[in-house]
């Protein structure tokens, strides 16, 4: 390593983190792929065909298509926020992995960028699987579907960073129960995934508009069924803002926990 000045943000540490994750993924890809793809598919089948047989159409869509697009968003949420919370907590507190990484020429923001980007890409791609399943059950393919991975990767970035931030806030690993029940469950329910938010009380509809998952659901549906350019720019902006705020909080939280 030559004695040269290094930039404030470099890609080498991100590549190093990815190298680590790829090595782990190569070992565990079957189990992690199974969990990440089959679980949302079960939701899709259970709700889509279970409720679908009772409801027929919701908000102008076949219910199975409505749920098929909604489950994409919930998959993006769960496959990003859980690794963000648990992996980073375990590596920081129990494995002390980050102490070794930060002894190398890696700064906290580069470490967070590496961890979050890996989770986001993996989660963003996995969460498109329910869409393929929905297509197998009659969802019409559309060119806009090609934009879905971009939406899910952006959504997963925000939630991965939220998870990393949460891992720096909780006093113990058991405290994640508060985050899961108190934050994630309401986000999951009030996002228009399984039922439209138009049926909710006014306050809940207002709350849904600050729910990043709602913006993801809307974008996915519009990508599949037809874009609403102006509204979609707003949804995209909301997701980007969410990811940016979470990046700030995650980096600040990790810095406080790792540097004394």
């Amino acid at each position, binding site marked *: 390593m030559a004695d040269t000045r290094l930039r404030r943000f470099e890609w080498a540490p991100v590549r190093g983190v990815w190298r680590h994750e790829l090595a782990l993924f190569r070992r565990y890809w079957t189990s992690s792929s199974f969990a990440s793809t089959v679980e949302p598919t079960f939701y899709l089948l259970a709700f889509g065909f279970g409720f679908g047989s009772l409801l027929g159409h919701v908000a102008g869509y076949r219910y199975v298509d409505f749920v098929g697009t909604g489950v994409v968003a919930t998959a993006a949420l769960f496959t990003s926020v859980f690794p963000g919370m648990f992996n980073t907590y375990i590596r920081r507190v129990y494995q002390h992995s980050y102490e070794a990484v930060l002894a190398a020429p890696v700064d906290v923001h580069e470490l967070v960028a590496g961890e979050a980007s890996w989770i986001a890409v993996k989660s963003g791609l996995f969460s498109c699987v329910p869409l393929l399943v929905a297509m197998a059950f009659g969802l019409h393919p559309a060119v806009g579907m090609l934009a879905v991975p971009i939406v899910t990767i952006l959504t997963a970035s925000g939630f991965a960073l939220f998870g990393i931030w949460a891992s720096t806030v909780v006093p113990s690993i058991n405290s994640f129960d508060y985050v899961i029940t108190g934050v994630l469950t309401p986000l999951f329910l009030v996002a228009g995934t399984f039922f439209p938010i138009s049926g909710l009380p006014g306050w809940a509809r207002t709350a849904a508009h600050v729910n990043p998952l709602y913006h993801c659901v809307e974008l996915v549906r519009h990508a599949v069924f037809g874009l609403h350019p102006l509204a979609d720019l707003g949804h995209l902006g909301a997701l980007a803002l969410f990811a940016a705020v979470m990046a700030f909080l995650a980096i600040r939280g990790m810095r406080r926990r790792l540097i*004394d």
Partner: protein
Amino acid sequence: MADSPAIILRDVVKRYRDKDGSQITAVDGLTLDVPAGVCLGLLGPNGAGKSTTMRMLTAQSRADEGEITVLGHPVPAESKEARALMGVVPQTDNLDEELTVRQNLEVFAHLYRVPRSGRRRAVERALEIAQLTGRARTRVVNLSGGMRRRLLVARGLVHSPRLVLLDEPTVGLDPQVRADLWGLIAALRDEGTTVLMSTHYIEEAERLADTCAVMSSGRIVAQGTPGDLIAHHAGDSVEEHHGPPDRLAEIETLVRRAGLPTRRTGPTVSVLRAERIPPSLADALGNGDRVVRRAASLEDVFVVLTGENVG
């Protein structure tokens, strides 16, 4: 640059706030130079501030006062540049157990920015140094404690650093594994790599360190070669007196009255600088089976300076 010290610490202070809100000064005005190409043993009891000092050198702990320069780079301002040039072997085993030996090294070759063209060679070299070439494809979880410790050292050397920080490198290891690691560290030192090694094992410092700094309560209380430290603080020889507690207390009083240092180790009082015991005192102390004379050691220096027995 060649003549400037690899590490310069000037009046460094690090304070922590305890859980009950009280303030703890872990490092209290530390001033220390580690010359390039030297193995310096940072000796001190637990809680002396050694690990905090190590963390400050990698900017994982930020000094409240003072200046730190590592390989010409002010820390923390240019710590990234400094970290690129040094390797760290932590006290805690933080290898990735799920990965193989080679994968652990490859990840850190990336993090240390070893160029792609030399990465494979760098990993092979690190495997050779740690004598783990035959275990390259073994998952870390299946390695013995000694192998894991050697891998930790190899990980810190994968980028051929100019400076290596070893934080208690052999703590908790059995004698055979410790001897293996000593061989590894000695080879590093002989190659001209600057080594800063914190330890509370006296024998480790005596065998490996060109020079030692004794740390107590966050400060350097003595520094020099092991020989100089022994000569200056413990003299040539030590007289160990065995006996009942009352007799030991009496010996301590007599010896201190004569201006000589003593140390108590269980049922023994050791009189340092025994070569200076005047004849009149020698008569009062007596001799025979209950008195043993031996050469002064670095352990005597450690105990005298830190007030702590070696664990």
